[in-house]
């Protein structure tokens, strides 16, 4: 095993992430306005912005899904029980004792088990909940009859609840960037694409001969 600086986030994945940041923040702010939490944006404009950002995000997700399945990256998001307890124990206890994070990033596994489980729930349940309810909400008049008040009430509330859960995810997601190596160190890979990874000799040899641009040369000393 050797620690190498490897490009773990290719350009598309970084674009995907940061576009999501912009669009989800837009949706959060406009959505809260539409829900009546604040009145910072005129209602009509908020509806337009919310609709356009949602459609853009859906388009992005279509591309991302295609990318995940064609590159095999989808495997990164399959959760494993193994090691999850150790990570949970670290956040609940070890981190206060100044212990090292129990998870070491490996090439095919850039998420720790708890992270992978969180993304799994997010991608398979919360995100579908919000975009399915969102599309039903948006297209209300194409399917609704005069007796659809209960249906739209349920849809809207499910949409709202999903949004709040995503809000909670964002808070914890950003906070956890401060744990361990520190905020800047954690954000950097998503900007530059490179992170320090344990590579097996086989992986190192493979990358060096086949994808040398993904490896940074070993620093002197």
């Amino acid at each position, binding site marked *: 095993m050797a620690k190498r600086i490897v490009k773990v986030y290719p350009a598309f994945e970084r674009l995907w992430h940061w576009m999501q940041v912009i669009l989800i923040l837009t949706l959060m702010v406009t959505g809260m306005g539409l829900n*009546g939490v604040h009145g910072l944006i005129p209602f009509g404009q908020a509806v*337009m912005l919310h609709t356009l950002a949602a459609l853009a995000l859906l388009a992005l997700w279509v591309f991302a899904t295609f990318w995940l399945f064609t590159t095999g990256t989808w495997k990164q998001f399959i959760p494993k029980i193994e090691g999850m307890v150790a990570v949970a124990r670290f956040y609940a206890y070890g981190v206060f004792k100044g212990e090292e994070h129990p998870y070491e990033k490996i090439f095919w596994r850039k998420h720790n088990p708890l992270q992978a489980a969180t993304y799994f729930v997010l991608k398979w349940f919360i995100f579908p909940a919000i975009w399915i309810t969102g599309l039903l909400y948006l297209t209300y008049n194409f399917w609704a009859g005069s007796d659809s008040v209960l249906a739209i009430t349920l849809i809207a509330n499910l949409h709202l609840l999903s949004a709040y*859960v995503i809000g909670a995810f964002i808070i914890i997601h950003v906070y956890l960037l401060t744990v361990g190596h520190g905020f800047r160190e954690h954000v950097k890979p998503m900007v530059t694409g490179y992170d320090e990874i344990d590579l097996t000799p086989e992986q190192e040899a493979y990358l060096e001969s086949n994808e040398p641009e993904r490896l940074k040369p070993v620093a002197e000393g």
Partner: protein
Amino acid sequence: MLLKQAIAGLCLAIVTAGNAVAEDAVSKSTADHSKFPSLQKDFKSGPEVTEACLECHTEADDQFMHSIHFTWEYDHPDTGQKLGKKNVINAFCGSVAGNEPRCTSCHAGYGWDDMNEAPPQKETAKDCLVCHDTSDQYTKLATGAGHPPMEAKGKTITGQKAWAVDLKKAAMSVGMPDRDNCGNCHFYGGGGDNVKHGDLSSVLYNPSFDVDVHMSPKSEGGEDMVCSDCHVSDRHQWAGSRYNVLASDPHGTGKPGEERHAASCQSCHGDAPHPTNIKGMKLNDHTDTLACQTCHIPEFARGGVPTKSMWDWSTAGKMDETGKPYSEDKYTSSMGKHMHTYMSTKGNFEYAENAVPHYAWFDGQVEYTTIDRKIDPTNTVDVNVIHGDRADGSSRIWPFKRMEGRQAYDKVNENLVYTHVWGPTTDTAFWTNFDWAKAIDAGMKAANQPYSGEFGFVDTYMYWPITHMVAPAEDAVGCVECHQENGRLADVAGVFMPGTDPNSWIGLLGKAIILMSFLGVIGHSLLRLFSRNSKGDHHG
């Protein structure tokens, strides 16, 4: 190039001007009534003019005698109620019955002075001129049962000092109805300018663009339309009823050239009137729940003439120190007009200008609390009940003027009563004798209705659909007016509206989730901070 454009422009201008001249020079109508010898007479009365009209318009009186303008009676096809001015009781002067010649001064006929009978059936008893005079000097006497003033004595139906009308001039001027033909009666319903409707006032004789986009002049961007452009007629029957309203019109514009007898917005604008972009589509999505008027008439009684919003009859009859009837003028309109807030004859009034409507589901049916309906005097009584329900598919949320009243009722029989208020020569009329017992007794006798002799006063509401004074698009009701807590539609049942309930239990649950996340994060970081003993967690 520039020269070529200039010449082309000039040519176009000349051609257009030429067309305009040609249009003006040729009469729109194929008949110039001023050239008819039978109209060039010194008529002595209204019926004489009608007689002359009928010489050529042989079917006009038969058509007209079946119209509600003449019968003042309406058989509601759905509720089976007999409505019309002849029968209903309202929250204003109460009833026509018992107050004829005064009320029937606006009858489109001559000499109807008893509501127990049908209007005079004689063919010359129809008033052609009130609708067709274009000389603008024909009018009706305020107390003349429909007859015009033939001398400068008394008052006209619009409250002006009467003048002797020139019937010859009026007869020679006839044409299609203009605004004043309709407005001289309809703008003054309830006995004064805009008293009744709230959206029909003398402002509409010549409104500015911001008051009415349809009737304002073309120079301001308006359409210069008259009432009958929307209220189209067929055989002297007009589209548009306040008893049986077309609350939604899915038929839209219909096929090209299709004749439509509907005074609905959709009959011109279609049922998807907003542009096909994301915003327009969202606005079009609202047309299954909202009437066009709900957004496009943001306030009623605009343009400077207030409407009466409250009328309390129970306080009428007070006298001043000298024992004489008196009045108070404590309301000033935006145009600076002082208006009665108390009259010994009529009680207390309140007014509203630029008023936000009351909103309710409306399927078009209006049921009246006629004399045969029992009322519950412990609650506010709806003088007319607005029907409608989201679930029926044809109801829309409509704007209304909600008139507040306090008016007389029969305590024993528990029904509203007819009152004899006008009658300067009787010893029972309230406005001259100030005695409710006599006035109600006489009113009930005039209407031929049973009366217990015991009366009280009950709070009432009366609803007037708001449909005129359509504002420019940029003045339409903004989204947030309704999409907020306690917005305009807060009291309308059966609607889900985003933005009206941020603190629903799901909203509160969501906020709790966010709060707990923050608290968790803060707690976690504090623990990290204070437990950083030997090594610390920053080891990067």
